[in-house]
């Protein structure tokens, strides 16, 4: 029995069939050939994912586990096939390394590579290693090159993998680099954020599965999540316009004077909220630290709590009679 994907989806009567197939497979009375087709479709729709870590804190993995709808169990059994992940996989040592070696040798063009963390390049990449091959340690840089070349697409998750992030901050003794600087020729989507938001990760994966590559901005970030700056969507925007400015952490009012990076930071956490939308940075009284931006955390030497200079405040109208006074030069 052979069905095209379209025919199959029509048969199923919905486009989100991946979510119901495992349940159907369990039902009694389904003829063998249909079961076979269902199993094949399952295999096609569950995107094989290999998730490796460079110089990471595992925060983006922890954050991804926080996905609510779908929850992480649903993601693992119905959306992706997570073949390698250092923090959750059962295997350790050689059996774990073999998963990566088989992917490179036998699954060329079939899997998506997720990279979390920056890639150390100083001293031949020796500042970050994982696994051994023929009794030689393998660097994260080597894994990214060989897996990245074999993958059909690469998701750089978090600001470290997207732009270098904290490990690449001055003085960057380990030569930490972004994934796109290691394998620029690969099809790369950057999903920055320190950490990245689970909706951005799961949403991007879902987009790749259902509709192909999402539209990206000049930093290869999906526009659907990173198209606007925080300031444009901020719940304290009226405070800015009316000149109500917080003078200390925890006060009501616009946080520009405390170093808020909202005018520079492309991010929708302000309308999406963090952790099942229980809170977000500015709502909790703390300025945006601009963690989705290539300049994080150095910001040209200014650091996290120095007022943004005017040239970094895109599209903001400072002419309102009560608006705070911008810094003209940092």
């Amino acid at each position, binding site marked *: 029995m052979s069905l095209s994907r379209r025919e199959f989806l029509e048969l199923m009567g919905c486009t989100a069939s991946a979510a119901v197939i495992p349940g159907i497979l369990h039902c009694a009375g389904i003829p063998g050939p249909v079961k076979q087709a269902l199993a094949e479709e399952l295999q096609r729709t569950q995107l*094989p994912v290999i998730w490796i870590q460079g110089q990471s804190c*595992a925060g983006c993995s922890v954050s991804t586990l926080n996905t609510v709808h779908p*929850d992480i169990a649903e993601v693992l059994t119905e959306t992706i096939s997570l073949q390698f992940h250092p923090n959750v996989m059962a295997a350790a040592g050689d059996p774990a390394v073999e998963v990566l070696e088989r992917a490179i040798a036998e699954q060329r063009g079939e899997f998506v590579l997720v990279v979390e963390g920056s890639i150390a390049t100083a001293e031949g990449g020796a500042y970050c290693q994982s696994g051994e091959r023929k009794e030689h340690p393998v660097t994260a840089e080597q894994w990214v090159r060989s897996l990245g070349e074999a993958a059909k697409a690469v998701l750089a998750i978090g600001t470290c993998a997207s732009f270098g992030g904290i490990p690449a901050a001055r003085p960057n003794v380990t030569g930490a680099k972004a994934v796109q600087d290691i394998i620029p020729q690969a099809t790369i989507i950057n999903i920055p954020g320190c950490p990245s938001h689970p909706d951005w990760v799961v949403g991007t994966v879902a987009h790749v599965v259902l509709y192909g590559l999402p539209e990206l901005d000049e930093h290869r970030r999906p526009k659907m999540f990173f198209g606007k700056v925080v300031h444009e969507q901020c719940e304290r925007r009226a405070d800015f316009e009316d000149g109500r400015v917080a003078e200390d952490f925890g006060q009501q009012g616009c946080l520009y004077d405390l170093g808020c990076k909202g005018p520079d930071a492309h991010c929708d956490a302000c309308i999406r909220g963090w952790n099942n939308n229980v809170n977000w940075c500015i709502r909790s009284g703390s300025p945006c630290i601009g963690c989705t931006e290539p300049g994080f955390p150095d910001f040209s030497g200014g650091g996290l709590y120095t007022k943004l200079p005017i040239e970094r405040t895109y599209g903001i109208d400072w002419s309102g009679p009560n608006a705070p006074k911008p810094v003209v030069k940092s």
Partner: protein
Amino acid sequence: MSKTIQIDPMTRIEGHLKVEIEVDKGKVTDARCCGEMFRGIEKILHGRNPVDANQITQRICGVCPASHAQASSLTLDSAFGVTPPDNGRLIRNLVLGSNYLQSHVLHFYHLAALDYVDITAILKYSGKDPELNRVKAWAQAELDSGKANPVAPFLPRYEGDYIADTDVNISAIAHYLKALEIRRKAQEMLAIFGGRMPHNVTIMPGGSSETVTVNKIAAYSSRLREIKDFVENVYIPDVLAVAGLYPQYFAIGQGCGNLLSYGVFEEDATGSEKLLPAGTYVNGEVKAFSESKLAEYVGHSRYSSGTGYHPSKGETEPDIYKDKAYSWLKAPRYDNSVVEVGPLARVGVAHLCGASETLSGMVNDTLAKFDAGVGALFSVLGRHAARALEAKIVADRCAEWVAQLQPGQPAHTKFEIPAEGQGIGLTEAPRGALGHWISIKDKKIDRYQCVVPTTWNGSPCDDTGAKGPMEQALIGTPIADVENPIEAGRVVRSFDPCIACAVHVITPDRKLVSEFRVV
């Protein structure tokens, strides 16, 4: 004939760890633990605004960033000379408490349990639970599909003496799934007062930027009630069930037998009283903790800098080719003794110094169930049990702290960054003793040092040749099959190591190949 086994990467921990063990006649005779990642966080901090440390040090570890936020805030409080108001202190405890709960639940179910639970038992499930049936159908379809790596990430695995009873396994799988939801809700609890998790934005010098409202109190309490219920009725019973099935692990992974706790959860403005007290247990004696007795040794670590320095004076000059050095972790010692840190140390110190009748009652009841003496605490199972009991103690106390919050009252005290200053912040991460030290010059960070839990537990030999706690715990571990050293994984994971935390770690190995080719 002894055989050397490498487990690299050691998975289901945080970070890049290699474990090297030598096995002779079915037992581990020697062990080395090597971290394999370095970022140079302390060098990155030099010259920055001291307040930036609060955010940057959280990125040391995404599993327990709240502990670094706490250590850093205490360090800056002391350097700036500010004291948080009660609301600020309570918010810090509530954030830290949520972090303990998410971390302990994650550790037992999602990091450690797969060393015991036979995940393939799901194929034999015959009940009616829709979620378990979905998982069963998924696993069966995966195996039938002929695809690469079916049932990933749960297979492949080391083969070994997994739990044989189908019902026990299936119940554990159900709890693995439930625990995913529980740990997520604990992260939400943290974000209610932390802004977000990982990497909260509200815990800072002077207290917290968060505003206390009745809605936040209710949102936190509601989740806490569900998590408390899970800890009492699922987590603790599951740990006891594993202990009942693997009693030999009360005698495996004993370690160094010495304990250190800095104490954690400030109960008053001065921080002198804590929920879990500071203290040490060395050579069978309980003593008060003294910060001046901390020192880091580098005799077998790849550093050319001086050895035996107090962390406030520590140096970090790498030397790849140093003779006799085999690790990039330093070896912190307390009063020249090897000490273990973590839940066992905190619960052990509190129990042995008689700090709390409730806590000692829980410890004694647990030991009595297995007819075991206090010595059995020093073991793989002792560590899991201490972690689970601690989760209950922390959850119970969080319920009281959240009730003490005062809506409308401030949570933050304004601070000024001094031109010069010194600061110190000692706290406990879920994995153990955590200390930050700062010195400020011209309102910028001049020096910042962190000594983190896994540097203690995963340390190499010190200058006297005494091995670190995890290495000592591995030695003597029986290994049934050198091709499947599952027992070594159980010992290492009982410490809940966090290698991203071990900031000093690097391993530029001389064997490194310049080119990596795949055949």
